[in-house]
Each structure stands twice: as structure tokens, then as C-alpha cells.
């Protein structure tokens, strides 16, 4: 019999990906190929065939029926008592302390949460040695609040790891998957999000990070505030106190980092939103009466924190009379462009307006 040695053309599936795969299979959202892989894996699970002696079998039948009766009548939370021996057996091989066993057992217990009504949270939470690991195994987004009051909205199949108590110099967390962050202001203690190979550093702001385990890209989008995004330094680089490449993002901007070619691609978020605090602070108004286009555009620039360029200086003085309040950025641009018989284009992180004019 020839043994096959096939060259590794691709990486091994890590456990997170495999768990996500099993989840897809259970929720019937797996592709045909994914289904087949799970079913192939399933055929390989086999323990030594063992028979139960008749006596044991009858005992099992009765015992199990008793438990079912109790559960159906709601008299007993039976699954709890069975879970702990299970984990003692597995964790014992690693040689763990008793407290770890209980934590792991509880983790297992909580993990089964999506099966019975008894455990509805579905947010697996493990806490060991001051570090917490939160896994969202449900299909809804769920909020997690950190020690400093920052709020992380965790997407399905995502996990966040963070210390219960932040260190005095910084607030550092680790993300796999996707989450929206609303970070409390604290200049003395920057907030760092590690996701994939990127570190996103903020002082106080709200932004979204997307780092899915099976995607070669990491994406960071900013809603308010300012963040700096850079490649996580290899241990060898830390000595020279130099972080890898990076960009600074302002609201309505986003960056996509490709792990394959180590490129940062900056651009705008899909639906730029007005920065409420700036509008209020600078008393910005979107009602224009014969206002020159240059003024209109500068108001928009301030409100959105996005660069807007015009390619024809002559257009600057064209007058505009319009009420642009409560419209999306792109709708506002449409109106402006209509007035100058022109159009707009998003180029990277800026918007370019071109037009024929208003003569």
C-alpha cells in the first residue's frame, strides 16, 4: 500500500475556523464543500466499538428515563451534574488546579447555552488570572462593557480577550472577528486593539474593527475621534522602538490592511456621517442662500472631516441656494453638482468635484 505524501499547499484550519465551520453546518448555512468536509471529519470519529453488558444496559435505560422525566417536569437541572466529571477527565490530563477545572466546566456549561433555555446568554465568558475571554456564539451582536466604561459591541462568532483591570499605562485588548468600539476618553491611557496583525490605538473615540479569522484583510473604520493604526511589531523590532507601517484615521475614514502584501489602503466609510459635536461646537448650518460653493464645501468638510477638492477654481464663486440639512453626504453632493453641472468622485480619502460652471 503506497502512502501518500501530498505537499502542503495550504495552511491547516485552526480551531476557531473549524468551530465556525461546525456552527455553519448546524445552522445549515454551510456550502456544499464545507458540508462535505464536516461529514468526512464525522466519519473519522470512531472509538473502539464497545458493547454494554445487558445488565448495564437496563440500568442505563431506567436511569436515563428518570432523568428525562425530571427534566421534562422541570424538577432538576441534570446536565450540570454530568458536565463537571467530563471536564475533570479532560483537563486532568493537562494537570490543572481545581479552580481551572471549575472554570472550564462552567465554560462548557455556558457554551451549551444555545441548546437549552436554561442558559440563554450564549456569551461564553471565561476569566483566568486576571484575563477575560468573551466569545459570542450567538447570531446576534452583543455588548461587552470594559473596566473603564468602554463598550464593545461584539459581532457573532467573534471573540474579545481583555484584562479585567487595565494596566496603568494603557488599555489593551485582543479581537478576533468583528466589533464596534466606543472608547471612553483618557489621554493618559491609550486604548489598543490588537486584531490580526494590526494594532489600533486611540485616545477616546468610536470605531469599528473587522478581523475575521478566515480573511486575509483587516479593516478599521472610524466614526468619531481619531485613531492610529499600525502593523504590530515583531518582538525583534520592539527593541528599536519602531512600530511597523501605519496610518492615522479620522472620522468617516477607513483603512484596509492586506496581510498578504502588507499594504494599507485608505478610503472613506460607506456611509459618512455628520460629526454631531463639531456641528454643534461650530454652529454649522446646512441652509444656504446664494452661498458661494467654496463656502458650502468648507462647511461640509468641517462637518464630515473629509477633504473635498474642486478641480476648477472658477467654480468656487458659483452661488448655491439649497437646504442640505438631514441629507446624506452623497445626496448633498448630488445637489451641489447639479448646480454646477458637474459630478463628484471619491478618490482615496478625498472627494473630487468637477463641473462645467454656472455662467
Amino acid at each position, binding site marked *: 500500500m503506497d*502512502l*501518500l505524501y501530498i505537499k502542503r499547499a495550504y495552511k491547516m484550519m485552526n480551531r476557531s*475556523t*473549524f468551530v465556525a465551520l461546525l456552527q455553519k453546518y448546524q445552522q445549515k448555512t454551510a456550502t456544499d464543500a464545507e458540508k462535505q*468536509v464536516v461529514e468526512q471529519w464525522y466519519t473519522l470519529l470512531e472509538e473502539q466499538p464497545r458493547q454494554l453488558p445487558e445488565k448495564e444496559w437496563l440500568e442505563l435505560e431506567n436511569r436515563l428515563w428518570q432523568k428525562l422525566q425530571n427534566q421534562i417536569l422541570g424538577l432538576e437541572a441534570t446536565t450540570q451534574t454530568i458536565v463537571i466529571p467530563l471536564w475533570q477527565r479532560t483537563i486532568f490530563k493537562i494537570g490543572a488546579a481545581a479552580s481551572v477545572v471549575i472554570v472550564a466546566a462552567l*465554560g462548557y456549561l455556558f457554551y451549551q447555552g444555545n441548546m*437549552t433555555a436554561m442558559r440563554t446568554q450564549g456569551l461564553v465568558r471565561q476569566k483566568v488570572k486576571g484575563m477575560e475571554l468573551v466569545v459570542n456564539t450567538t447570531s446576534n451582536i452583543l455588548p461587552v462593557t470594559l473596566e473603564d466604561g468602554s463598550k464593545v459591541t461584539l459581532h457573532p462568532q467573534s471573540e474579545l480577550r481583555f484584562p479585567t483591570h487595565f494596566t496603568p499605562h494603557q488599555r489593551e485588548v*485582543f479581537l478576533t472577528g468583528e466589533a464596534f468600539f466606543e472608547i471612553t476618553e483618557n489621554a493618559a491611557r491609550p486604548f489598543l486593539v490588537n486584531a490580526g496583525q494590526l494594532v489600533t490605538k486611540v485616545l477616546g473615540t468610536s470605531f469599528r474593527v473587522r478581523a475575521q479569522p*478566515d480573511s486575509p484583510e483587516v479593516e478599521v473604520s472610524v466614526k468619531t475621534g481619531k485613531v492610529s493604526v499600525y502593523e504590530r511589531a515583531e518582538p525583534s523590532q520592539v527593541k528599536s522602538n519602531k512600530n511597523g507601517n501605519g496610518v492615522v484615521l479620522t472620522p468617516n475614514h477607513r483603512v484596509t490592511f492586506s496581510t498578504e502584501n502588507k499594504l494599507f489602503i485608505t478610503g472613506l466609510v460607506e456611509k459618512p456621517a455628520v460629526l454631531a459635536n463639531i456641528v454643534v461646537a461650530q454652529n454649522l448650518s446646512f441652509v444656504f442662500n446664494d452661498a458661494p460653493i467654496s463656502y458650502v464645501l468648507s462647511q461640509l468638510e468641517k462637518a464630515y472631516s473629509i477633504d473635498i477638492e474642486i478641480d476648477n477654481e472658477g467654480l468656487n464663486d458659483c452661488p448655491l441656494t439649497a437646504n442640505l440639512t438631514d441629507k446624506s453626504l452623497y445626496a448633498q453632493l448630488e445637489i451641489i453638482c447639479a448646480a454646477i453641472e458637474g459630478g463628484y468622485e471619491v478618490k482615496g480619502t478625498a472627494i473630487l468635484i468637477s463641473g462645467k460652471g454656472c455662467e
Partner: protein
Amino acid sequence: MEYQLLSDELLVKLLRVDDEGAFREIYKRYLKLLTKAALNKLKSNEEAEEILQETFLQLWEKRTTQNIDNLKAYLFASLKYQIIDHYKAQILAERYADFIFSKDLQPENSSESAVNFQEIILLFEKTLCDLPQKTSQIFRLSRLENKTTREISEVLHVPERTVEYHITQSLKLLRFQLKDFLPTVVLSFLSSF
């Protein structure tokens, strides 16, 4: 009422209207088969018991909303779902265990390129095809057609011990070939030596 005499279809209908006697009969009728199947996929009797309990519990809890065509197939599918859930939790807990004991608290590195499922599928098939004809035939009958050892031995006119041997051989090779690509296969793989 003599539930023992009733067909599966009738029992399913009765179950839908909360008939506990029907539930008891279904339990008695299928427990042994399901237990054998569960013992094949799980390491300990306790694990098997818990999963069987959950399977029947689900049957009861979903009795009014379920639309069961084939009771036997439904129960086996439900059992499979529970077993997969069990392994899913186990893999996650392994990660936690690693996390607890690792000094370096980095998250698991994402696979650098997307996993190629087609390659895994092909590797599995190729390995199977490269086995001696009888071995792969027995494996397919056992795993892909879910036939019991006894059924296979009857159909192919070979002793049950031989059937078990061929299944063990194919499992050994398949697990060896796929150990780099499917994480939990390593667990079972190691235990078979």
C-alpha cells in the same frame, strides 16, 4: 393502549399532541440503536449518556413544531447534531485550556490563505481510493451508508472481526493523511495507537 403495536408514523402523530405514552414508546424502541451509535463516536459512557438525554429531550421539546417524515432518520440526525455540538464545545474548551496555560496571550493566528475545502475533500477521496478494494468498500458501507458491522459481514460474507479490521485500517490511514488539516482528528488519531 398498546403503544408497542403502533407504527412510527402513528407515534409521531400522537407525540405531536403531547402523548407521553408515545414518547415513552419511541424512547424504548430506539434507545439501544442510538446508544450503539453514540458509543461509537464518543469516548466515555457518561458523554454518550448525556448526549442521548439531550437528543430525547429535544424530541420532546420540539414535539409540536417538528415535522417528522422518518422517525429513525430524524433521531439519528438529531443525535449527530448533538455529537457535533459536543465536539464543538470540546475544541473551544481546548482553546481555553491553551489560553490559560500560555504565557504568550496572543490570539490564534488567522490562516494566511483561506482554507481550501476542495483540497481536503479530494485528499480524503484519494486516500480512500488508494486503499485495497475490499478495505475501501467496507469503509464506505460502514461510514457512508451507515451499515452495522453485522450487516456488512452478512452482505460480503466475511466474519465480523474481519470487517472491524478493515474499518480500523482505513481509519488509521485517513486520520494519518488528514491529521495536518483537521484539528480534532489528531485527538482520535493519537488514541488509536
